[in-house]
């Protein structure tokens, strides 16, 4: 009620001042993330990042007043996401969107956003080709699957780990990641000694782990969605004694994600992952980012990729709004401004591709270690300006 009242007051004030010389236009931003259920950490991190950013850089970029409208997508659920996008676009009249998260939700939202010409930021979906042609107003600040799934193959071969076993979760993103990794492994002259697709609801890995053991690989590459699966498999490989006997555990950053790594525990130490962001990234901006984020969210809520993606979405929003200073908000100009735009992110430099709004960024190979008793991902090698293709 309080917020409703303050919005009302703000609206009245806006009308009053519009009659004067200085009009302050309100830009409504829809924030569509998962706030409940198994994937709620993404929504939580997004909220913290936005709050931190607005505290730090003010609430009126380019003289526009920002108003956030949050909705819960509940996870990968395109039917819900599409309806929520429709609702915030047609009834709340949002002019910008952060989200929705997940590939199926992003795909479902695309036609509405295109029809209504509402620019959006893809902060939580990684499938290739979901920004670009079908959604001319979308900008990706997350990552694209190949960026994460390819670099580990040449890295592993270079270290002399040539016989690789691949384990992915048995769903579309898993299949895509498997494809990119196996391709890159072939290119790097590594050998695929076996592969497994494991079910999405799977409390028990021992049967699979015995298969890995039988194949005698040098290393195992893992792709699992964040949560019970990403935690479970690393712990299971560790508990079975395979890690102690010298098997290298590799995977996309999901398996040592900062939000979940404490639950993985000791099993995570030494795991090699490819990632776009680590809180340990060495740059002045990142140190600043970690400090102010932690001040808002508290030590307990660690910083994951959703946070940094939302942060960059805010950075880009502020840049684009500054460019429209003194004018009326224009969604098409907003999206066009971002094409080819380059910013310094806490993760390092990122560029929004000129032709389709996808992201070009550095990818880091990291090793999980304890730093002052806390599990962290230490960047040990950098692949510069990796393409989204």
């Amino acid at each position, binding site marked *: 009620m309080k917020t409703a009242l303050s919005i009302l007051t703000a609206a009245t004030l806006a009308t009053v001042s519009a009659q004067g010389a200085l009009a302050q236009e309100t830009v409504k931003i829809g924030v569509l993330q998962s706030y409940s259920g198994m994937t709620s950490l993404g929504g939580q991190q997004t909220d913290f990042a936005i709050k931190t950013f607005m505290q730090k850089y003010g609430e009126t970029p380019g003289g526009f007043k920002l108003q956030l409208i949050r909705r819960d997508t509940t996870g990968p659920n395109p039917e819900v996401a599409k309806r929520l996008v429709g609702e915030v676009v047609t009834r709340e009249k949002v002019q910008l969107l952060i989200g929705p998260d997940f590939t199926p939700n992003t795909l479902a939202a695309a036609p509405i956003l295109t029809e209504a010409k509402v620019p959006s930021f893809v902060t939580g979906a990684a499938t290739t080709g979901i920004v670009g042609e079908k959604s001319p107003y979308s900008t990706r600040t997350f990552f694209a699957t190949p960026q994460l799934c390819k670099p580990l193959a040449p890295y592993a071969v270079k270290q002399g780990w040539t016989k690789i076993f691949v384990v992915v979760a048995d769903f579309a993103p898993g299949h895509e990641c498997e494809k990119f990794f196996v391709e890159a492994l072939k290119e790097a002259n590594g050998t695929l000694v076996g592969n497994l*697709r494991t079910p999405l609801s799977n*409390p028990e890995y021992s049967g699979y782990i015995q298969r890995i053991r039988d194949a005698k690989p040098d290393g195992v590459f893992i792709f699992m969605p964040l*949560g019970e699966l990403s935690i*479970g498999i690393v712990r299971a490989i560790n508990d079975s*004694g395979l890690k102690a006997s010298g098997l290298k555990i590799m995977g996309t950053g999901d398996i040592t994600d900062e939000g979940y790594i404490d639950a993985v525990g000791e099993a995570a130490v030494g795991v090699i992952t490819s990632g776009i962001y680590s809180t340990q990234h060495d740059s002045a901006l990142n140190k600043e980012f970690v400090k102010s984020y932690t001040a808002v969210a508290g030590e307990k809520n660690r910083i994951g990729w959703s946070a940094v993606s939302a942060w960059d979405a805010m950075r880009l929003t502020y840049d684009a709004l500054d460019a429209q200073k003194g004018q009326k908000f224009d969604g098409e100009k907003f999206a066009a401004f971002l094409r080819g735009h380059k910013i310094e992110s806490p993760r390092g430099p990122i560029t929004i591709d000129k032709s389709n709004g996808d992201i070009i960024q550095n990818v880091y190979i990291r090793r999980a270690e304890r730093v002052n008793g806390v599990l962290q991902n230490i960047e040990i090698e950098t692949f510069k300006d990796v393409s989204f293709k």
Partner: protein
Amino acid sequence: MASILTVLFNGVAYGFLLFVMSVGLSVTLGMMNFVNLAQASFSMLGGYILVTAMQSHGLPFLVCLPIVFVLVGAVSVIVERLIFRHFYKTDDLTQVLLTIGLVFMSIAMATYFWGGSYQRFDMPSWIIGQKEIFGLTLETYRIFLVGFGAVMAVALIFGLERTQLGAMVRACVDNRRVAGACGLNTELIFAFTFAIGGGLAGLGGALSANLLGLDPNFPLRYLVYILIVVSVGGMGTITGTLIAALTLGIADVLGKYYFPQFGSFIIYLLTVAFMLWRPHGLLGRGA
């Protein structure tokens, strides 16, 4: 050969994991005929109590287990006195709706008190790692689980199912008025059985949370497994629950080893086949 035996052992261990998770529901549903899906929430509570006691208060793992049993048992009696006892005479679907509502509430409450992320378990060093037994390399925690589960099963079958107490509980369920007239304190017996069921669910949560991961969605993630084990085993029989858990556990692990492309199909197909073959469960008494 060694790998087959290891797989088999892991199957047995998974079976006992399923058993400790489901036995709480088996007691309340099987003996008291009350469909309490909130048992899964009691399991989650058990996991959180274990984490808090171990991580924040530094208590040893083995000391924590009885604490979990007693505390969760106490909580379940409170819930029983406040809410459940008004619903003993309602039909199954009403009980399902009531308890699923409680599960939803418990998820939000766990998020509020413990946060939405997964909990960290620092298990004592004697229980992690592997041991060599008969030339097989087995995981220590799984050995512990098999031992603990076996003791629990024996204690429950002989201490609860085949004793006077068991007979008294069944008498209260079958005909409360007559049981009361025979001098049984039905209220007390119901509350007591509920406490045991809740305590067991808590224990199951504490023992499994380390392997399965613990977050506020724990109840919804494992409810289906618990339901499958209890119904395949048959209502009102702890022995049945044990047999079902072991069968499904072994089948699942063997299936994943020999036919990994089938994924979860095997456990679901088995469930459907069992239930078509014996609609009241393997050892169920029938309606």
